[in-house]
């Protein structure tokens, strides 16, 4: 199906912003100023962009520990995200969550998650709300190849199918769970084969190809909104950085990432395709690139300058009452 110029521009803007955001975090993390665990999404942007292109604020997503891309694609404020990662009072969660717990329910973003696979169950709930309240919304769970082996994920897929929920299970098979290859940890070597086990349609796509992701997600969303139940989508691509910042990646061939960047990079391929087809011009894409760089730069500056949370914040938000 055809996408409008605006849709294409938005897609590129999202992918570039995610890339800038995480490439910059990689640099900033090395300075030691960023606390805790940070997992970078660079290399997987086409998935977040292709999936979220079909979603609005009323639709929900549940993300993972590697969630920056999902957050940005779902519309979370970049300044608030950056400040959260720095643990500042101006953070999207007031500095109490950090990179692994960025959330914004106003944008339908149910949270990154420090527990792999857990989001699939939360998404069944969001889909149940949509179905029960008749909002016509859909709910999407992002899960990694490693997380796909969590019991909760299988339970959630079966439940979504039995309850015929407007839920979509997007698996980001980026080749590794920590230092273990998905070709080893997944019996049979892929995730899409599990769709049939739960009687739902399964799609496997090249996660470096925005257009391929966008198309299968279009079908899955249509099916969900029409009340026909859940779908499974397996996207295959690889992350550009280590499992977390600091990972030496001894498990990867030296040239693996360089080759990926040179041959299958999602931004490069998107740009080639839309310019070759004359859908978008190089100039406007360049403008987006520099705009993204500027936005991330100001977000980092603002985050560094922002105040830390007041001591009183320790004792709030435990319950509604305090």
């Amino acid at each position, binding site marked *: 199906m055809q996408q409008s110029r605006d849709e294409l521009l938005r897609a590129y803007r999202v992918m570039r912003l995610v890339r800038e955001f995480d490439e910059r975090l990689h640099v900033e993390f090395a300075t030691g100023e960023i606390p805790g665990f940070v997992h970078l999404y660079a290399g997987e942007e086409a998935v977040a962009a292709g999936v979220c292109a079909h979603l609005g604020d009323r639709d929900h997503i549940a993300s993972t520990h590697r969630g920056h891309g999902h957050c940005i694609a779902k519309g979370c404020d970049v300044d608030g995200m950056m400040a959260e990662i720095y643990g500042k009072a101006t953070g999207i969660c*007031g500095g109490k969550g950090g990179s692994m717990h960025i959330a914004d329910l106003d944008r339908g973003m149910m949270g990154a998650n420090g527990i792999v696979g857990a989001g699939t169950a*939360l998404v069944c709930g969001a889909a149940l709300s949509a179905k029960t309240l008749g909002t016509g919304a859909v709910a999407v769970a992002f899960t990694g190849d490693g997380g796909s082996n969590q019991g909760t994920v299988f*339970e959630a897929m079966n439940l979504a199918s039995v309850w015929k929920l407007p839920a979509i299970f997007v698996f980001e098979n980026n080749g590794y769970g920590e230092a273990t290859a998905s070709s080893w940890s997944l019996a049979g070597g892929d995730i899409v084969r599990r769709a049939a086990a739960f009687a739902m349609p399964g799609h496997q796509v090249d996660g470096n190809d925005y257009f391929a992701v966008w198309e299968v997600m279009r079908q899955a969303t249509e099916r969900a909104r029409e009340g026909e139940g859940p779908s499974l989508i397996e996207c295959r691509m690889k992350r550009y950085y280590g499992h977390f910042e600091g990972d030496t990646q001894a498990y990867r061939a030296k040239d693996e990432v360089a080759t990926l960047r040179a041959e299958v990079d999602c931004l490069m391929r998107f740009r080639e395709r839309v310019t070759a087809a004359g859908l978008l011009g190089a100039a406007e894409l360049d403008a987006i690139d520099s705009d993204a760089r500027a936005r991330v730069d100001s977000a980092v500056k603002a985050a560094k300058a922002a105040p830390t949370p007041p001591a009183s914040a320790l004792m709030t938000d435990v319950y509604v009452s305090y």
Partner: protein
Amino acid sequence: MPAKSFRTAINEALKQEMERDSRVVIIGEDVAGGRGGSAGLEEAWGGPFGMTRGLTTQFGAARVLDTPISESAFVGAAAGAAMTGLRPVAEIMFVDFTGVCFDQIMNQIAKIRYMFGGKAKLPLVLRMLYGAGFRAGSQHSQCLYPIFTHLPGLKVVIPSNAYDAKGLLITAIRDDDPVLFFEHKAMLGARAEVPDEAYAIPFGKANIVRAGGDVSIVAIGRMVQMAVRAADALAKDGIAAEIIDPRTTSPLDRDAILTSIKKTGRLVVVDEASPRCNMATDIAALAASEAWHDLKAPVKMVSPPHTPVPFAAPLEDLYIPNAEKIVAAAKATLQ
């Protein structure tokens, strides 16, 4: 007032809150029962123990959701639904089964609001049966409420009678925080006077079951019954026991306990849960730190031994705290 069973009290609370608020939905295994069965009934069970009986017939299958045996998925679904506009009441059947959905309770439900800086609200209730005495064996007889009391972000409610059960469940359903609601499997038939209309009993307010000046007995859930029997026996010996039923362990009514100790100077805590890091130690520690100057004798804790719950009847009876043990403990504080 009509006398009703604990089971009926729970059922009434669910029914009345579902009538009052269309966002309240029930989720659990066989809460309706009969899905796909050859009898073709809309409601074949109304819950494994009948607590949800009649709700499917009245409110329809869209609000009374049976589930596959997948606690992690449906408890997580209850959380996700609570974050997005519904007010789910999920039934986990036996609290022992929280083992298979513990992450959703401990790492998701209890922490989401805090991690998100207050941006989320999780108005949900998890109902479950607990306790020994049913000859149900080690995996179907635990209390476990100390574990949930330990976890910040959760509220823990343990009614000791049918009247409290209805009022506390109504409060739990109207509360905007996640509540774990404990129902003792050996008390489902226990009757009390229960008003027909809806009423709410506040969390964090203990019930002084009986006033007395000689010794304070704090008892949890079913142990309140045992404490009452003990108090009767003590009364025969001229000892006036004050019985305090906290009703909720998180939040805990510290003031009621401390006030009673100030009056009696003596404390016995009765807890059916395993003895290490349980509510008895929690309350005894409260006394040791906040009421030390009022105490006239060592605090006594009456709990089961540090063993799983045995199956054989005589062993299980030996395991469960009873009136005799409470009497002995109370008298020890008066030595």
